[in-house]
C-alpha cells in the first residue's frame, strides 16, 4: 500500500492540520519518542553522576535536580502515557473496532497539539532561567519555596491533563458508539478493554491532580495557604491529592501495556486468549481498587495504624486482578505455536520484566518491610522494572507489532534483534545492582554518597548498564527510521492475525480506514484461530 502514500505524496499541511486518528497517532509517536530521547539523556547524565562518590559532572545539586525533574516528568507524562494512550490507542483502537475514525476527530487533533504544547513548555525549562527542580512529584513546601519555575511544572501537567481528559471523552464515546455491527462488548480486543479502562482512570483521577497542582500554583504565585500549616493549610494534603491520581496513573500505563502483550502473544501464538472474560473482569477490578491504595505512598509520612493497615490490605488486594491478568497471558502461551519475531521477543521480555517488577512490589506493599526499604534504591529499581522497563518495552513491542500496518514495511531484521538483546542486557545490568544496594541502605536520588563507598562497584555496573541501553535504544530508533522508508515490504496481514486491523484494511490504511464498511459475523472473534496441534502453522501465511 505504499503506492497510495507515494501517489498522494507528502503534504506537510495534511499532517499539521490533520484530524485523522492514524496521523494523530503518528504525531504522538514522534512526540513521545522525542521525549524518550531527551529524558533518556537525562538518565545517562544521572547515572554518570552516580558512577562514584563525589562530584563527577556537576558542581552543585541544582543541575542534578533539574535532570531528575525532567527525566521523571518527561518519561511518565510525555513518553509512557502518550506513547500508550496517545500513539497506540489512536492508531490501533478505531481499526480494532471497525470504525472510520474516532467520534470527535477535531477534539482528537486538539488533544495531540495540547501534548506538543506541554512538551514545548517542558523543553523551555532548559533555556529559561530558574528551571523547575521539583522532581515529577512537586511536593510542597519545597516546590512553593524554591526559586525554580514551579509554574512550568504546573502548566505541563495542566496541558497534558486536559489533553488526556479530552482523549478519554473521545475514546469512551468512540467505543460506545462506533463499534462496527457484530463487534460486541465481549468480542472487543483486550487492548480495547485496557485502553477504555485506562481512559476511565484518566477521566476520574486527572482532575484531582489538576486541582492539586493548581493549588500549588496559587500558593506559590498568588499567596494562598493551601499547603502552609502556619496559616491553617495542610502540607500532607498535597501528597494525598497527588497520589490519588499518580498511583492510578501507574495503571493508566500498566493496563494498555498489558493490552499490547495480549494482542502480540495471541497473534504470534495463533491462540485464543485464555480466560478472556476473567481478564476483562480483572481489568475492571483494577480500576475499582486503584482509587483506594494511594496512601501507601505516604507510609512513612505519619498516619494512624488503622489507615496504614487498611491501605496495606487494598494494596495487596490489587495483586489478585493483576494475577488473573498474568494467568490469562501465560495461559495464552499454553499450547500455542509461537513464532519468535522481534515483537514476540519484546513481549516475552516484558513477561519476565513484569514478573521481577511485580514480585518486588509485594514487600513494598507491606508496611513492616517498607519502613526499611522506603526511599532506597530498592524502590527505585522496583519502580523502574515496572515502568521504565516493562511498560517501555511494551511500547516497543507495539511499535514492532503494528509497524507493518503503519508503514507497509517490516522493522524486523538483524538490527532489530541485535538492539533488542543490547537493550535487554543493558536494562538488567542497570537495575539488578540497585535492588541489592537498596536492601543494604543506598538511598535513592542521591548524587553523592561519600558515606557508602562499599556501593561504588554496584554503581559502576548500573552506569555501564545505562550506557549499553543507550546504544541499544539508538540502534532501535535508527532501525525504525530506516525500516519506515526502506524496510522489507509487508503484506496486509503479515502475522496472520484474526483482528480487524489486520484482516479488513490495507497497510497503511488510507482515509476512512476500511475500503468497505465493516460487518462481522456472529462467530467472529479477534482471537479465533483454528484448533490445531502445536506448530502446525507458521505465523507468516500470505494468501498463496
Amino acid at each position, binding site marked *: 500500500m505504499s503506492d497510495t502514500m507515494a501517489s498522494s505524496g507528502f503534504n506537510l499541511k495534511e499532517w499539521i492540520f490533520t484530524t*485523522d486518528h492514524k496521523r494523530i497517532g503518528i504525531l504522538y509517536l514522534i512526540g513521545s519518542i522525542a521525549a524518550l530521547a531527551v529524558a533518556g539523556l537525562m538518565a545517562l547524565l544521572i547515572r554518570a553522576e552516580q558512577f562514584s562518590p563525589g562530584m563527577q559532572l556537576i558542581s552543585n545539586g541544582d543541575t542534578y535536580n533539574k535532570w531528575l525533574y525532567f527525566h521523571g516528568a518527561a518519561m511518565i507524562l510525555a513518553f509512557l502515557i502518550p506513547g500508550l494512550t496517545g500513539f497506540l490507542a489512536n492508531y490501533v483502537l478505531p481499526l480494532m473496532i471497525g470504525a472510520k475514525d474516532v467520534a470527535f476527530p477535531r477534539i482528537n487533533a486538539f488533544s495531540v497539539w495540547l501534548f506538543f*504544547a506541554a512538551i514545548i513548555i517542558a523543553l523551555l525549562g532548559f533555556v529559561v*532561567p530558574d528551571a523547575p527542580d521539583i522532581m515529577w512529584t512537586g511536593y510542597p513546601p519545597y516546590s512553593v519555596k524554591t526559586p525554580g519555575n514551579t509554574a512550568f511544572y504546573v502548566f505541563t501537567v495542566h496541558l497534558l491533563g486536559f489533553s488526556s481528559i479530552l482523549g478519554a471523552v473521545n475514546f469512551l464515546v468512540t467505543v460506545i*458508539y462506533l463499534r462496527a455491527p457484530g463487534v460486541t462488548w465481549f468480542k472487543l480486543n483486550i487492548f480495547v478493554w485496557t485502553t477504555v479502562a485506562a481512559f476511565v482512570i484518566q477521566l476520574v483521577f486527572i482532575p484531582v491532580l489538576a486541582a492539586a497542582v493548581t493549588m500549588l500554583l*496559587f500558593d506559590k504565585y498568588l499567596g494562598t*495557604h493551601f499547603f502552609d500549616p502556619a496559616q491553617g493549610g495542610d502540607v500532607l494534603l498535597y501528597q494525598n491529592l497527588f497520589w490519588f491520581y499518580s498511583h492510578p496513573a501507574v495503571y493508566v500505563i500498566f493496563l494498555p501495556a498489558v493490552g499490547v502483550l495480549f494482542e502480540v502473544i495471541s497473534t504470534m501464538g495463533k491462540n485464543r486468549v485464555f480466560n478472556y472474560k476473567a481478564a476483562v473482569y480483572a481489568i475492571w477490578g483494577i480500576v475499582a481498587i486503584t482509587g483506594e491504595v494511594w496512601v501507601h505512598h505516604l507510609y512513612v509520612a505519619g498516619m494512624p495504624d488503622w489507615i496504614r493497615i487498611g491501605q496495606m490490605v487494598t494494596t495487596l488486594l490489587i495483586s489478585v486482578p493483576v494475577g488473573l491478568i498474568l494467568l490469562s497471558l501465560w495461559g495464552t502461551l499454553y499450547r500455542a505455536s509461537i513464532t519468535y519475531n522481534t515483537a514476540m521477543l519484546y513481549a516475552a521480555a516484558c513477561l519476565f520484566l513484569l514478573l521481577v517488577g511485580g514480585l518486588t512490589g509485594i514487600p513494598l506493599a507491606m508496611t513492616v518491610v517498607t519502613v526499611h526499604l522506603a526511599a532506597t534504591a530498592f524502590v527505585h529499581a522496583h519502580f523502574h522494572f515496572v515502568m521504565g522497563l516493562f511498560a517501555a518495552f511494551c511500547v516497543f513491542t507495539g511499535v514492532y507489532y503494528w509497524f507493518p500496518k503503519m508503514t507497509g514495511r517490516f522493522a524486523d531484521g538483524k538490527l532489530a534483534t541485535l538492539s533488542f538483546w543490547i537493550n535487554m542486557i543493558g536494562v538488567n545490568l542497570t537495575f539488578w545492582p540497585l535492588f541489592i544496594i537498596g536492601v543494604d541502605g543506598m538511598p535513592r536520588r542521591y548524587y553523592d554518597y561519600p558515606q557508602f563507598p562499599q556501593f561504588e562497584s554496584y554503581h559502576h555496573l548500573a552506569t555501564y548498564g545505562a550506557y549499553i541501553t543507550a546504544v541499544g535504544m539508538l540502534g532501535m530508533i535508527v532501525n525504525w527510521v530506516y525500516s519506515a522508508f526502506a524496510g522489507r515490504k509487508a503484506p496486509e496481514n503479515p502475522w496472520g492475525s484474526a483482528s480487524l486491523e489486520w484482516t479488513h484494511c490495507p497497510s497503511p490504511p488510507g482515509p476512512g480506514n476500511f*475500503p468497505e464498511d465493516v460487518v462481522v459475523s456472529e462467530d467472529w472473534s479477534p482471537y479465533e484461530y483454528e484448533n490445531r496441534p502445536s506448530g502446525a502453522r507458521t505465523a507468516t501465511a500470505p494468501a498463496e
Partner: protein
Amino acid sequence: MTAMSATNHHPATAHAHHWEVSVAPIAAVFGVFFLVPMAFSAYFVYNSPLLAIIFAGIGVPLLLFGVAKWVSEGMVYKPLMEGLSSSAGLPVFIVSEIFIFLALFATYWTLRLSADVWPPAGTPHMPALLPLIMTVLLVSSSVTIHIGEEKLEHGDVAGFRSWLLLTLLLGGLFLGCTVYEYAHLAEQNFVPSTNAFSTAFFSITGFHASHVLVGLAAFVAVLVPALGGRTNKYLVTGVSIYWHFVDIVWFFVASQIYFW
C-alpha cells in the same frame, strides 16, 4: 515471507475520500498556550508585564480564530455514525468536572475540619442576601435556556434567540454579582492570601465563576451563527447540558461556602 506485494486485495482507488484536515484545533491550542502558561509565567514568574501582554496579544486572536472556525465547521459537521451527536461527549466530560470540584471541596473540608476556630481571624461578615440573589439568577437562567431549547426544537429560531439572549443576560448578572462581591471583600482586606478560608473561598467560587464564563462564551458561540439563521441543535443541547451542570454545582458551592 516472500511475494508479499501480491496479497494486497484493496486497490488504492477504493478510498473515495481524502485526508480530513482542520486548522481550528491547532490554532485553539496555541491560543491557549500563549494566553495561559506563557502570559502567566511572564507576569508572575519573570515579572515582565510587557511580555505577558505580548503573549496575551498573540494568544487571544489565535484562540478566538480557532473557536470561531471550530464552531462554523461544527455547524455542518456530520457525525460518523447515526445516533452519535456532538453532545454525546459532554456527559463524559462532566464526570471529569465533578471530580475536580470534589477535589476542591475535599481540600476545603480538610482545611475547615482541622481548624481550631472557623472562620479564621480576618474573615469579615458575609451577607447571605447576595448568594441568594445569585442562586435565583442562575436557576432562572437554567429555566430560560431550557425554554430556548424547546423553541428551537419547534423550529422557532427567533424565539430561541430571545431566550438565549435572556439567559446570557442572567448569566452576565451572576458574574456581575461575583465581581461586586470580590471588590466588596477586597475593600475589607479579604483577599486570597488573607487566611485559610479566603484561600478556599476565592478558589472555589472563582473556579465556579470561570465555568460560568465559559458557559457564557459558549452561548455567544451559538448565538452569533443563530443571528445569521444558522443553528445546530446538537451544539445547543451540549451548551445547555453544560449550563445545567454549572447551575447544579452552584448549589454545592453556595451551601458549603455561604450557608454552612
